[in-house]
């Protein structure tokens, strides 16, 4: 009974920087997430991951395309209805040091959403809800009256999660939620997120650049490159059998915590850097770094096509037989 909770259709987000210069941060992206699933999103910095996340939580308005949440386009709602939706979509931010107001106590931070959405009728009810949230994320009641600077990075991230959960969301965008944390703390937060997902039947869009975490946590994974979607598949399939040359290069680059493997494996590294997303060249965005690039790659933008079993890839080389 897979039921789509969020659907992104032909999403485009451009930023006008100066005259005639357009930064195509997100260029025609479509994907969907089923309720109760975790979708991983990977790509290098500047590829548009965060822009997608922010557009979904309505921090940005798209230039084209739509974001459907439970079938409703969230960018076409009036204020009142929109408020109903924001309750359901929440976000966890990357930097637990910058995303909490240093002048507010934990209870004020966690309670803010509760107040805005008027979820509690009395003060005691409100405090109970805050305590409940704190306990849910592994903190305790005494923490409610403290300030963010009194907490470690992992604890702050827990506060950020409590804040997101306080309004009873169905969908969470985790934008690099663990990248700023230590390895052992990362594991704690990941365990917490998985635990909460099961308990509250949440759906996650999990944005990260740590591929081993993505492999561990997500059901499906999408790979972005310079504002475009290059590959989309069930996670295990994607990691075992990557098709797009960029995905292959990305996986090659990740060092594996196994010295024997590292010693015996020849690394085929991607050369060069991500080109600028400002006024990108036509054709495949990856063609400037791709060793398989042909004439067609430089002229024609490849579209996402099924390469068998729901493994979608946008590459001319992979779909060679169709030339």
């Amino acid at each position, binding site marked *: 009974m897979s039921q789509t909770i969020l659907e992104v259709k032909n999403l485009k987000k451009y930023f006008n920087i100066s005259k005639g210069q357009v930064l195509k941060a997100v260029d025609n992206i479509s994907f969907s997430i089923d309720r109760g699933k975790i979708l991983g999103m990977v790509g290098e910095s500047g590829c548009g991951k965060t822009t997608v996340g922010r557009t979904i939580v309505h921090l940005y308005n798209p230039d084209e395309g739509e974001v459907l949440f439970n079938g409703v386009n969230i960018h076409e709602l009036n204020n009142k209805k929109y408020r109903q939706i924001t309750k359901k979509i929440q976000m966890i931010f990357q930097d637990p040091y910058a995303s909490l107001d240093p002048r507010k106590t934990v209870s004020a931070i966690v309670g803010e959403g509760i107040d805005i959405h008027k979820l509690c009728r009395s003060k005691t009810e409100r405090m109970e809800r805050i305590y409940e949230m704190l306990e849910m994320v592994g903190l305790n009641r005494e923490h409610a009256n403290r300030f963010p600077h009194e907490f470690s990075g992992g604890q702050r991230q827990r506060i950020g999660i409590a804040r997101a959960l306080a309004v009873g969301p169905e969908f969470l965008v985790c934008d690099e939620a663990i990248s700023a944390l230590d390895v052992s703390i990362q*594991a704690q937060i990941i365990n917490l997120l998985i635990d909460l997902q099961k308990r509250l039947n949440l759906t996650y869009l999990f944005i990260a650049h740590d591929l081993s975490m993505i*492999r561990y946590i997500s059901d499906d994974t999408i790979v972005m490159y310079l504002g475009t979607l290059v590959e989309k598949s069930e996670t295990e399939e994607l990691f075992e059998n990557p098709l797009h040359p960029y995905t292959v290069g990305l996986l090659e680059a990740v060092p*594996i*915590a196994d010295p*024997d493997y590292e010693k015996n494996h020849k690394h085929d590294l991607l050369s060069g850097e991500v080109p600028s997303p400002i006024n990108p060249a036509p054709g495949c965005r990856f063609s400037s770094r791709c060793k398989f690039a042909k004439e067609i790659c430089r002229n024609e933008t490849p579209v996402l096509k099924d390469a068998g079993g729901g493994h979608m890839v946008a590459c001319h080389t992979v779909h060679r037989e169709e030339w």
Partner: protein
Amino acid sequence: MTEKILEVKDLEFSFDTYAGEVHAIRGVSFHINRSESLAIVGESGCGKSVTVQSIMRLVPTPPGRLKGGKIFYCGKDITNCSDRQMEKLRGKEMSMIFQDPMTSLNPTMRIGRQISEGIKKHEKISPDEARKRSISLLKEVGISDPERNIIRYPHMYSGGMRQRVMIAIALACNPKILFADEPTTSLDVTTQAQILEVMNHLKQEFEMAIVLITHNLGIVARFAERISVMYAGKIVETGKTNDIFYDPRHPYTWGLLNSVPAVGKKRTEKLPTITGTPPDLFMPPKGCAFYNRCEYRMKVCKENDPPERKIGEEHYASCWLLDERAPGIKPYVVKRHAGEGSGKGVM
């Protein structure tokens, strides 16, 4: 040929703050040989960076204070040498690259000048010669079109390029040791792989010893020959890379290794974590610093600091579990052989 380039013995370093003394480093000993790569791993706040910075004498004193221990460079005691002598070593004999390439370059100086600055300081060299050297250094670290690039400013560069420039600056006088403090943490995986490649190439070509500070075990596995695991201002285990990954002896090392998701593990199994937090270094514990978080703690651990024990050639660990009176414990350590047959996407 093993020639000890740097040897540190029982280094102790503290910070005097308004709240009291922070015992940042509490007796650290290690050495590094010529053209060897040593990784220092551990959580943030365990003293990795301070260790290196105190060797380079980059910590302002006060608040920092060297409390004890000896530092030998090429057999020579440099613990108490004058600041002027240290200045001669710094940059020329030992160099450092920092974590954040965005903030550690001077935004108002052209790249070429920043590279040649160090050369001019240590060597009598004509401007033209310095320029030529800068160009060849940039080529060495993989920057294309160096003639044009040396007249640019840092803001015109991407993160990866800036880190390459940082490495070029560090290399300018052919140092014998390079300290790399989390050199790739702020970079993308693909750029990170390129930077590691550059460092590997330098190690081999210039016989440079590299001390790499990181918390990423993948990088360690790819790059290091030896590993020192640090916890709360002490090195708890040291060994060859294979010893640490395949035969770790300290519970903290077990915990670190376990918290990296292994191949083929799905989220139905929980990731093992190290619960709790590191001890407060204002008041370091009397016994083993890992006592509070250790699953295998015993009575003896609380009051007595475990001595370092030799396990194999170059493999040492400090834990009471290694005592002959301790109960034999089979640690739960995730098997981490990726295997050869599982395709190109092994991770």
